[in-house]
């Protein structure tokens, strides 16, 4: 189970890293007259045994019906133009493995490129929130006294806030239209701000117990300073807990990005992310006819499943909740 989860996550991360080589088309290239096109069908062998595709021609713009042009014959091109596989995008026969979106862009390529922003944001936010949580919790548990109660009160307060509303409010007070990189930093800051207190509370409780244990007392007697004691001796004791928390935060943050982008408060449409791509699925009338617009949902599901599978085998209940 654990290996399956790790393999799943590994494949996704690898695909995200290799997006420029794997994606058949640039993520923002628009193919005229292929809006809402269905996935390109790959036909097995031609007379020379090569897999090939046919060009798509639109039959009815009103009904968005497409038909394959059987006279055209476009063999797949491997390892050309610096990508793994593509068809003939310049002559109206692009390789659209998951169809085209409402703007005629290649959904599969956008999915690959979109994984970068989504995963990077989720992973970075998890890292930052865990680090801040570990530091604050460690300092609070170690120092005690007034500093401890100040830090603890603060984290308790943030924990009881309705996180989704705070995220919404913090995002919405900024100008609604911002460039992708600004959004990235903004969401990173909001997620880290809301994520650290849960971590800090647990770390504080662990450090509070650990600092009275013999090894900590011995280290102190041997002359270890507060910083060294905290970082080298006490925080490692919270390692398992930190890993657990990180595995809860990562799916929550990925989901938060998707939610924000889905409702139109996240990344702009020109930055492909899984959340912005999910917007295509918000049109109920179209959703029934274009199941492939749910592809980013499947991608999010696979990440969450991968994390849950990795956590499952450690014997902990797979509770993943956000407030």
């Amino acid at each position, binding site marked *: 189970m654990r290996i399956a989860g790790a393999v799943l996550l590994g494949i996704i991360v690898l695909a995200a890293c290799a997006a420029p080589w794997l994606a058949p088309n640039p993520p923002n290239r628009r193919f005229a007259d292929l809006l809402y096109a269905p996935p390109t069908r790959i036909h097995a062998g031609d007379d020379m045994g090569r897999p090939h595709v046919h060009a798509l021609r639109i039959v009815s713009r009103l009904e968005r019906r497409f038909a394959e042009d059987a006279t055209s014959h476009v063999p797949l091109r491997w390892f050309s133009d610096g990508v793994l596989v593509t068809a003939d995008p310049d002559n109206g026969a692009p390789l659209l493995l998951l169809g085209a979106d409402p703007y005629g862009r290649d959904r599969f390529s956008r999915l690959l490129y979109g994984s970068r922003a989504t995963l990077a944001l989720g992973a970075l936010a998890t890292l930052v929130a865990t680090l801040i949580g570990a530091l604050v919790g460690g300092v609070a548990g170690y120092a005690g006294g007034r500093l401890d109660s100040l830090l603890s009160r603060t984290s308790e*307060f943030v924990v009881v806030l309705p996180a989704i*509303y705070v995220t919404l409010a913090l995002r919405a*007070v900024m100008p609604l239209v911002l460039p992708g990189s600004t959004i990235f930093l903004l969401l990173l800051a909001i997620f880290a701000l809301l994520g650290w207190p849960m971590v800090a509370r647990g770390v504080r409780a662990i450090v509070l117990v650990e600092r009275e244990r013999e090894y900590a007392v011995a280290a102190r007697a041997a002359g270890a300073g507060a910083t060294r004691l905290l970082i080298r001796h006490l925080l490692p004791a919270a390692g398992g807990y930190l890993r657990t928390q990180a595995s809860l935060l990562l799916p929550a943050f990925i989901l938060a990005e998707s939610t924000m982008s889905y*409702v139109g408060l996240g990344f702009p449409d020109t930055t492909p992310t899984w959340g912005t791509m999910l917007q295509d*699925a918000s049109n109920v009338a179209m959703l029934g006819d274009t199941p492939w617009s749910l592809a980013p949902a499947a991608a999010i599901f696979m990440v969450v499943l991968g994390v849950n599978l990795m956590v499952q085998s450690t014997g902990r209940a797979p509770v993943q909740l956000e407030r």
Partner: protein
Amino acid sequence: MARFLLRRVSFALVLLVCTSSAALFLTRLAPGDVTSQLGPFAPRAEVDATRARFDLDRTPVVQWGRWVFRAVRLDFGDSFLYNRPVGPLVVRAAGNTAVLAVAALIISTVLGIGLGIFTGSRRAGWMPACVRGVSIFFVSVPPLLMSLILVFIAARTRWLPTTGMLSPGVVDPSWPAWMADVAWHLVLPALALALPIAAVFERLQSQSMSEAVGQPFLLAAIARGVPASDLVWRHAWRVSIRPICGVYGLVIGSLLSGSFIVEFVTAWPGIGRLMYEALRARDIYLVSACAAAGAAFLAFGTLLGDLLLAAADPRVREELDA
């Protein structure tokens, strides 16, 4: 117990004031205000009159003071978007969210605990294995994805309405017809919200059940001749319910965030949608009231969770009284 309740309620009140005030300041300091809704051709005088009506011509602190002064008398200001007092608006939306959340909570509790006891008490066989597999799957399908998938299925098959709370075109229906219509529209959002939580409950219950089944007191009960169904449902279950009660407060909290996106996807007219609309329009008092409602919802949920835990675990009860 009374002291505990008093402490919690007063803390919740402080939280309410803090969140709604923070929401007010945030919205006020954000670029743009409600007058942008008047359009670019609005005459200067009308813009100024609108600003004056919503206290936007005063400093934020004075505006906040006047708002607090009115709020004490239960006047929470007017909504610009809807051009009426925010109180009834928010109460209505919060009611809709509560209906959705309670329905989801009931479905997930019954489904999750029932199935969890089933899979936890018998390990062999293909049925428990199936349930277990399905719930591992569902744990990884959060409400955002679940609602999209259900909407897709409903749009394809036309089994269920996908949007809104009432069928369009029905004018002034009778009470039973209205109830039936709402319930019919409730099925999809409630399921979208409930299924992931049911899966979490199933996993937790199953785990603690299988632990409880292995304990000596159950062996003793078997030796006394307690029938098998009583063994599971009365003896083991009472012990195994504790972990569920422990996460119940968290779950009620997560219902709020889950319901936001479900409301958005299925156009359920709840508090999350209202907050979103208000934020985008910079409808300042509506934002504050929605934030307060959200905080109240959360505070109530965690309180309920703690009380449940206290009911299930005598040790927690002592802690609360202390």
